[in-house]
């Protein structure tokens, strides 16, 4: 039983690897489904923004409120904006955004493609002369890759505004001083790695969602399972990528 589960895991990993290779093969070959890509971008970007924005705002506010007592204990209240901004921009906002997207986009893609698979729409598409991989997978993965960094940037902005409100709950600080403090503390090596990292988050979420959807079996029951396993796998991979990003940044001394 154990060996079967392990075999299944290894098989799935191999399938995912092959699926990824196929993505790169198909993805950079014309013709490009630009219209569908823009559609997917709209659904992934615009439709996720409210959720991501609210989450980011709450995270900024909460992190500030939580950090305040310990900063006060060190007599470093004035450092609160810089400390909070660095932790938000470097780690919290990218990871939280990626997790939200893994939940919303990953499950959405998995369920959508899974149901298309079980209702044989994908086969029908192939028959009608459209490349389903190009039309369904490549567009979604690219859309996720392009939208995730933009979502992270907007979420950063909203979270930093939330942090500003959080700081002002305990002390009075002008927005000018606040922005001065955060921008003098932040560096390119804080912002750029987090944005580069979110490309990979988007890629992972998109490719896992598509893979799970494409490999759905066992009818409608399998659709739910596909959606579920897409979220779980994507969440897990997001953390793996985050760990790798931190390691790589450390190796190149981008700290």
């Amino acid at each position, binding site marked *: 039983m154990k060996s079967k589960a392990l075999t299944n895991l290894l098989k799935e990993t191999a399938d995912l690897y092959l699926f990824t290779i196929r993505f790169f093969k198909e993805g950079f070959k014309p013709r490009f489904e630009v219209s569908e890509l*823009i559609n997917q971008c709209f659904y992934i970007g615009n439709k996720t923004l409210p959720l991501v924005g609210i989450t980011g705002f709450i995270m900024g506010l909460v992190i500030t409120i939580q950090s305040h007592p310990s900063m006060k204990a060190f007599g470093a209240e004035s450092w609160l904006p810089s400390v909070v901004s660095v932790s938000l921009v470097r780690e919290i906002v990218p990871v939280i955004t990626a997790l939200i997207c893994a939940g919303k986009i990953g499950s959405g893609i998995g369920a959508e493609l899974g149901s298309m698979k079980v209702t044989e729409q994908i086969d029908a598409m192939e028959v009608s002369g459209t490349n389903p991989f190009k039309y369904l997978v490549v567009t979604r993965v690219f859309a996720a890759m392009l939208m995730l960094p933009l979502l992270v940037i907007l979420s950063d*902005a909203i979270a930093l505004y939330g942090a500003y409100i959080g700081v002002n709950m305990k002390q009075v600080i002008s927005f000018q001083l606040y922005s001065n403090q955060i921008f003098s503390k932040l*560096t390119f090596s804080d912002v750029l790695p987090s*944005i580069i990292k979110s490309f990979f988050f988007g890629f992972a979420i998109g490719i896992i969602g598509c893979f799970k959807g494409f490999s759905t079996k066992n009818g409608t029951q399998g659709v739910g399972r596909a959606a579920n396993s897409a979220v779980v796998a994507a969440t897990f991979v997001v953390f793996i990528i985050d760990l790798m990003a931190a390691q790589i940044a450390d190796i190149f001394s981008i700290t």
Partner: protein
Amino acid sequence: MKEQTLNRAKLGAFVLIATTFLIVGLYFIGSKKNIFHSSISVSANFSNIGGLIQGNNVRFNGINVGVVSKVYPIADTAIKVEFTIDQSSTKYISSDATVSIGTDGLLGNKLVNISPGKKKSKQIEEGNLLISTRPIQIDSELRTITTTNNNLKVITDNLKDVSEKLNNNNSLWQLLTDTRVADNIRKAIVTFKLTGENTAVITGNLSKFVTDIKAGKGTIGALLTDTSITEKLSQTIININSISDTMAIISGDFKTFSKKLNNKNSTLSTLLSDTAFVHNLNSSIINIKDGADNFNKNMEALKHSWPLKKYFKQQKKSKQN
């Protein structure tokens, strides 16, 4: 189709806003690090930079003017620190400005402080090597503070001793608390005051005295102010004058007399200048002297002569008694 266009527009807005945020954010971060300003690069050598790293701020009189761009050793006791200075700030920094390494707050980041040089010196230029001063090492400062504290302890101990002695030493304390001393001093002051008053009275009297003298009261006043005395005095002077006139006449006579004396033909002159006469006079005097000697001898002989001998003996005896 219409909905699709709207969706695309929304997506465009989304992408645009997010990109704008990214660009603005990166610009602000870069501007804080002086990346987008034109700047010059200068350097300074230090023996110890105390943890200064690339990217630390450079301050001129407390204003951020640049960042540290490179830190590397050039000898076993020298570290070269290269840093940028914002072009707009260079006109205020002279080439003899001094550079030191400081800390932002007590525990903050390290930074490079530029202190202004002399005003007349040349403006700072690309590639200048600035003079560095030794950075403040907190541990060495703490050592100094420890020494100061030890000294303070000794001083306060001594002060404690002094105050204890002051409390215990009765004579000193008595001196400070003795009311008699104060009384004496007070009396002395009163006496002194009286003396002063007396002096004032004396001065008043003196001035009255002087006034009286001026007014001719009293003997001195009379003496000084009596006009009759003055008249008498002038009379006396007139008399003196007439005496001197008489004296002049007498001296005139004396002059005539001496002229006559000088005249060789006059009797007196002849008498004085005739050598034969002088010779005769000399021999006469010698004769007289001889005569007197002889007379002395005769008298001595007479002493020893019988009738007078007794008389001289008696006289001698009475002289001895």
